[in-house]
């Protein structure tokens, strides 16, 4: 770990402007991801801005019938919130499928969205990794890639985004509210939040320098059966091989987002039109551009089969 300076921000604007003043600064929320990465010197921020005192830890209704979730609401609290459980069951289920109770007690909504990949080569600083060290190469391509992405990949990086929560957020059409160092705020759909790896896999989101997430908003509830199915090698405390988050309406229409297959929660609205045709039709469309490796080709049939099981469960 490299030495760093540390400050506690008291307002969102102060946090954002602090970040702008200190190039190479990072916000720290629960610290469950950032600190691990700092110890291994995968992240080497020169300055930390602690955002835990920002009073962004409440969940409130929005005027249009949705919910506004503060950036610092802990995963445990979010999953347990009565409104979330009633109206956004998918989110609650996805959260509870992630990490462990202890980690969820610390992990925050914004931190969860911004957690970094679990590609094993990203974690080993002896290995080339374009995401960790731009231009150094990608050890995972041609290496061990069982966990890694099958769609949206580039020649520079095939890492996945590991979040369960983000899969639910994408299916629920969440929006991410931010504040920039100059005080400007914006609200961007989660569909526009994560960047494709392209040649710059180290740039993961469309956030700009110093931009702070203040909240995530959910539109008014959409009903339907909300199912989160996470498939993994052991039944708890493991990242997803793949996951399926689905909202299926009584008429058979719905939404499908897949986790563990790309650098972001993978949803293609056009694929959802295939829902009446069944899991294969949806998957074919959803993963039409797949580029698999020998290690991870199994994810293609796994997505289809898992989706089929989810649709059967929704119908039951």
């Amino acid at each position: 770990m490299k030495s760093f300076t540390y400050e506690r921000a008291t307002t969102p604007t102060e946090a954002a402007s602090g970040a702008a003043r200190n190039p190479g600064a990072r916000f720290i929320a629960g610290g469950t991801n950032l600190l691990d990465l700092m110890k291994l010197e995968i992240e080497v921020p020169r300055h930390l801005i602690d955002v835990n005192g920002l009073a962004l830890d409440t969940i409130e209704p929005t005027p249009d019938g949705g919910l506004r979730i503060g950036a610092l609401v802990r995963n445990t609290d979010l999953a347990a919130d009565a409104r979330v459980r009633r109206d956004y069951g998918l989110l609650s289920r996805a959260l509870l499928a992630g990490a462990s109770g202890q980690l969820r007690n610390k992990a925050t909504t914004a931190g969860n969205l911004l957690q970094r990949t679990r590609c094993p080569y990203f974690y080993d600083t002896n290995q080339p990794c374009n995401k960790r060290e731009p231009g150094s190469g990608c050890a995972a391509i041609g290496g061990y890639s069982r966990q890694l992405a099958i769609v949206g990949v580039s020649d520079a990086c095939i890492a996945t985004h590991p979040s369960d929560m983000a899969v639910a957020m994408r299916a629920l059409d969440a929006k991410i509210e931010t504040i920039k160092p100059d005080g400007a705020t914006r609200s961007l759909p989660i569909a526009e939040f994560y960047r494709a790896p392209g040649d710059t896999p180290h740039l993961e989101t469309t956030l700009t320098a110093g931009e702070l997430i203040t909240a995530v908003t959910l539109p008014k509830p959409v009903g339907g059966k909300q199912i989160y199915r996470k498939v993994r090698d052991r039944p708890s405390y493991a990242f997803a091989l793949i996951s399926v988050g689905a909202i299926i309406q009584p008429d058979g229409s719905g939404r499908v987002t897949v986790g563990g297959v790309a650098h972001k929660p993978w949803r293609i609205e056009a694929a959802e039109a295939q829902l009446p045709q069944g899991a294969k039709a949806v998957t074919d469309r959803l993963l039409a551009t797949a580029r698999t490796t020998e290690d991870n080709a199994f994810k293609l049939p796994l997505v289809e089969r898992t989706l089929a099981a989810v649709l059967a469960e929704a119908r039951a």
Partner: protein
Amino acid sequence: MKFDTPATTNPIDRLRVIGQPLDRIDGPLKVTGTARYAYEQHDVAPGQAYGYVVGSAIAKGKIVSMDLAAARRAPGVLAVVTAENAGKLDKGKRNTAKLFGGPQIEHYHQAIALVVAETFEQARAAAQLVVVKYQEEKGAFDLAALKGAAPNAPSEEDSPTQSAVGDFAGAFASAPVKLDQSYTTPDQAHAMMEPHASIARWDGDKLTLWTSNQMIAWGVGDLAQTLGIAKENVRLVSPFIGGGFGGKLFLRADILLAALGARAAKRPVKVALQRPLMFNNTTHRPATIQRIRIGATPDGKITAIGHESWSGDLKDGQPELATQQTKLLYAGANRMTSLKLAVLDLPEGNAMRAPGEAPGLMALEIAMDEMAEKLKIDPVEFRIINDTQVDPEKPKVPFSQRQLAECLRQGAQRFGWDKRSATPGTLRDGKWLVGMGVASAFRGNLVMKSGARVTLGKDGIVTVFSDMTDIGPGSYTIMAQTAAEMMGLPIDKVKVELGDSSFPASAGSGGQWGANSATSGVYAACVKLREAVVQKLGFNSADAVFEDGAVKAGNRAVPLTQAAGDGEITAEDTIEFGDLDKTHSQATFGGHFVEVGVDAATGEVRLRRMLAVCAAGRILNPKSARSQVIGAMTMGAGAALMEHLVVDKRRGFFVNHDLAGYEVPVHADIPHQEVVFLDETDPMSSPMKAKGVGELGICGVGAAVANAIYNATGMRVRDYPITLDKLLDRLPALS
């Protein structure tokens, strides 16, 4: 005491303390956090500095240069030790690769520097400033690619790597029913909870180490040899060990680097191997490729059995003894086994819980299942048909005790084996495809010379001293039970001090020999203590009985405390074993039964029930023995379903080198587990008439899981671990 004739009746047979399901005597220390492990011995040496290990970034080659200047200048740094500045170092005889590498690099993450600083954080930060230039060499990392050219593994005196009896080739060729299949098991990590850790302190030329090591006497010898100092100047202290599984049988880098760091920094230094370093820096269970051929007559009698196994290790390393059990488990007149060994430039392979049998049975017991199916004989029955009461390679040598058939029969009955569908893939419970599997468990019973000292204090407390270690199984407790039984005391009148090389050398913990051997050492010492007490109190030793805290003969009874009235009495002895383990084949046996559910959509395998029936001599403490077996079953489940060190064949290292990437079972993986011990005493094994159970529990579990998966799905997977991707393409079509 020499143990060279079968045990007769002795005070242990009273079973007032021995054989009772007593709580661990060190339990309260453990659950209150006051049992201090190596790294936590904060007060044993004042001024402890912290060491952080730098591992090699390449698998094979040379260090061209090391720039230590920035690290040396970093805040808090006291010393930077490398092989170049550490002085002359030898290698312990039980290590294959050097613990401290450079300039030659033998494997990935081989330790190449230790940075010592005032705080852990400073040491870590400075370690990351060490700049190393390497000249990489091409290495061999792919066992399968080397298989064809791998020669016979060199035989050692007592363990030939090749064996042949009768005419295997002829008998196999002419067998009416036969199987010829290959199986693979992957490299596996011990992944014990407590990392390797040591604190070193020099007092002049005397070196004391608080460490975490299973085999204290081996450690003293190997460390003295590595450092080139006298054994007498080395003291190891290892009272509590947070798991080892064979990974702490030998010295690892932590202990050597702590000693070197302390010498360089001129103050005590502590070193714990960083978790991400452990998987490549330390040893692992080597991967195997195994070929098994079985020939039988239609009534199920095996006529030919052949088992070959390929594994790899660094140059001058050892094979994984995966054919070991096949020499002894089933009858059959014509047999062969063969171990081949390839040279690999991966980290050092070595013992991990039930080395040999664990991976060997993972293959053999699938083969037996496949063979039973070809023969259309129930797999439990097929095993029983081929039971033998003599060593099949040496028919003149009987087994001392062998209740394999009884384990299987009782297991089948308790588990409800009759409910198993003989046709695979036919039982469904909602979304689950359900199946049952069985496997035999077998693990040899090793015995090792073991010493102890016992004292009877003025307060009437008996204290046992031994360098025996407790790596979690409950050595403290069973040794206390032994002394209590021998001296006629309740267990709370016995204290046990372990893990210190200044105490008598014991068997140590490994190869499931610890419990039987170390308690026998206590037995021997207590026999001497009894003699001393009897003499002191003026009894005729032949008829004195030790019970209820007193020595009794005829109508005379004297409290034991009286013997130590004018000073404590000490006795010391070592149990040494004769050749009863040559005249009789000694082993432990069991039957594993497993029920699994396989998700029909995703192929996820979830265990539903597990049962082990074990026959392992006298069970010294059913409670701690059960813990050993359920823990081993859990590890076996991990081997079956998830544990896999993945080799990057280009770069030559285990990629998933942390506990997020190397998955071991979690609570949610493990369902109801049941363990049954058959009533057994084995007078050939020791005066305790006991054997080990700690490794038996893992032997065969993996295959029982694999066979249950086959029974559930009709899919035979011969490459471990059985992850869902290996099942997916053959699962039933979905609506």
